[in-house]
């Protein structure tokens, strides 16, 4: 996803585009830097100033991408995002790489596991969590060309799958969940956000081999949240599961539940959210190790779904 983001920026940067980094991006910024050196700013290891600078640049008409790892350009400078970028409705995109446990072994400082909860609560901020490389590329492109105002773009790291086709990616709509795999039998809906999309597709394929019909929806936009599709899914499907690499508190599953309030004819008995516990990990491990530890690995999720379906 990180590579897709930089490729999109390199391919589509406009005269007003500015990329500003908190001294990160070694090895991945070279293409952009070579093509657009005049649009590149290194703010140094100073994220509060970086977001303040971004606000100033945007006040002067620039469209700014402010880039760093995980929590550094979100939590460290949250007030600059809230007061300066969001309140003033400025064209600044906070680009966070390493959403969830992507930097697993580096420790909890690098685990972005509360960011969706915190950022989506800020008014005026659009929140994207692309699910594959194509969504990351496409959303970046749209931010460049459209006036979306303040955006939080949560990327994975590297090595994520490409799950969309060239045709399907053209159909995604900002603010709408995208049905990546549609099964006419409304048995199980798998709702996924961010880098869990690959797991969602894997689980769907495994279930298919056992004649269990499921559909996969990619929620690349967390805010504005697609309440309409979500309510429809809960009404139409027998079972719903959600997947996120984020704390159970305040993230994707919370957004889903919020979207259902007041909607008639919905029962939550058959809704199973897969998310991280609201806890700091006590063990060292890479992304896959930690996903397994917290029961959101493909195998663990598949096993759990089969158990739930059996019990029902």
């Amino acid at each position, binding site marked *: 996803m990180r590579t897709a983001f930089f490729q999109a920026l390199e391919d589509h940067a406009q005269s007003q585009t*500015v990329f500003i980094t908190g001294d990160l991006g070694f090895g991945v910024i070279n293409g952009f830097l070579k093509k657009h050196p*005049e649009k590149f*700013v290194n*703010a*140094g290891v*100073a994220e*509060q*100033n970086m*977001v*303040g*600078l*971004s*606000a*100033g*640049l*945007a*006040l*002067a*008409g*620039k469209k700014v991408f402010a880039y760093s790892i995980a929590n550094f350009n979100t939590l460290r400078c949250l*007030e*600059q995002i809230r*007061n*300066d970028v969001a*309140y*003033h409705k400025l064209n600044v995109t906070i680009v966070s790489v390493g959403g969830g446990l992507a930097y697993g072994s580096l420790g909890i400082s690098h685990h972005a596991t509360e960011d969706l909860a915190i950022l989506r609560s800020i008014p005026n901020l659009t929140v994207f969590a692309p699910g594959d490389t194509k969504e990351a590329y496409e959303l970046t492109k749209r931010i460049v060309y459209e006036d979306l105002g303040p955006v939080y773009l949560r990327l994975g790291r590297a090595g994520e799958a490409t799950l969309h086709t060239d045709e399907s990616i053209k159909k995604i709509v900002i603010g709408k969940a995208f049905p990546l795999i549609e099964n006419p039998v409304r048995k199980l809906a798998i709702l996924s956000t961010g880098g869990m999309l690959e797991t969602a597709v894997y689980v769907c394929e495994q279930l298919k081999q056992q004649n269990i019909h499921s559909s996969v929806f990619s929620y690349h936009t967390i805010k504005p949240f697609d309440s309409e599709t979500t309510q429809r899914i809960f009404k139409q499907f027998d079972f719903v599961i959600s997947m996120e690499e984020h704390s159970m508190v305040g993230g994707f599953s919370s957004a889903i539940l919020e979207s259902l309030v007041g909607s008639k004819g919905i029962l939550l008995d058959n809704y199973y959210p897969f998310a991280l516990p609201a806890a700091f990990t006590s063990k060292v491990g890479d992304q896959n190790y930690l996903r397994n530890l917290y029961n959101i690995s493909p195998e663990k999720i598949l096993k759990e779904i089969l158990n739930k379906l059996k019990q029902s």
Partner: protein
Amino acid sequence: MTSVELAKKIRIHAVNMTQLGKSSHVGAVLSIADILAVLYNDILNIRPNDPKWSDRDRFILSKGHAGAGVYAVLAEKGFFPVDWLKTHYQNGSMLSGHVSHIGIPGVELSTGSLGHGLSIGAGLALAAKMDNKDYRTFVLMSDGECDEGSVWEAILFASHHHLNNLIAIIDYNKIQSLAPVKDTINLEPFVEKWQSFGWAVQSVDGHNCKALKNALLNIHPSNPTCIIANTTKGKGVSFMENQVLWHYRSPQGEEFDNALKELEG
């Protein structure tokens, strides 16, 4: 109107507004009245009838708690009717205690949390460089605000990029929220600190309009400029001067009458 006359009007508005709104920070507004007057009368290249003119100089009040002063000077310069000032701090008003830009022509930036303005000013200054524009960005800060780490991040960045179109003005009244600056987090040697960070520094009497104007007309050709304006908190009202109390207290009753008498006298 001279800047001295404008400063007097700002002070009278400040006392009236904080009385009507029963609000704090009159001492902070009195402290910067002369700086605001000189900027808006003699320095800033702005158009009250076209507040969004793209080549205008930008002014940011980073010490947002003194927002009443900005509202007052903007009203006096014709950005909006002076009558609006009566709504300051009132329920349903646009004029919040800390300066807000929404619905108020001429306010570039909403502030209130300290340590934000200089970074944003640096961003505006950098954008002007990128676009080959001549406008300048002035950021008025408090001394206590310099406790914020983000201020020093911006100071480093601005000098590294030689933002000679960025001017920081420090309202150095030497009193912060609870006690004198020197007893809270000492800033001295203040001039030398800024100089060692690569800024051109001028230390002036922040209540001498001529000195302020002279300093603001002599900004450094290649480096960012810092003007340390030595001020008195509560300036112009004898019983408010140098008193921490008047960071918070709203002038009412006899105190209000006496303050106005002193300012109008």
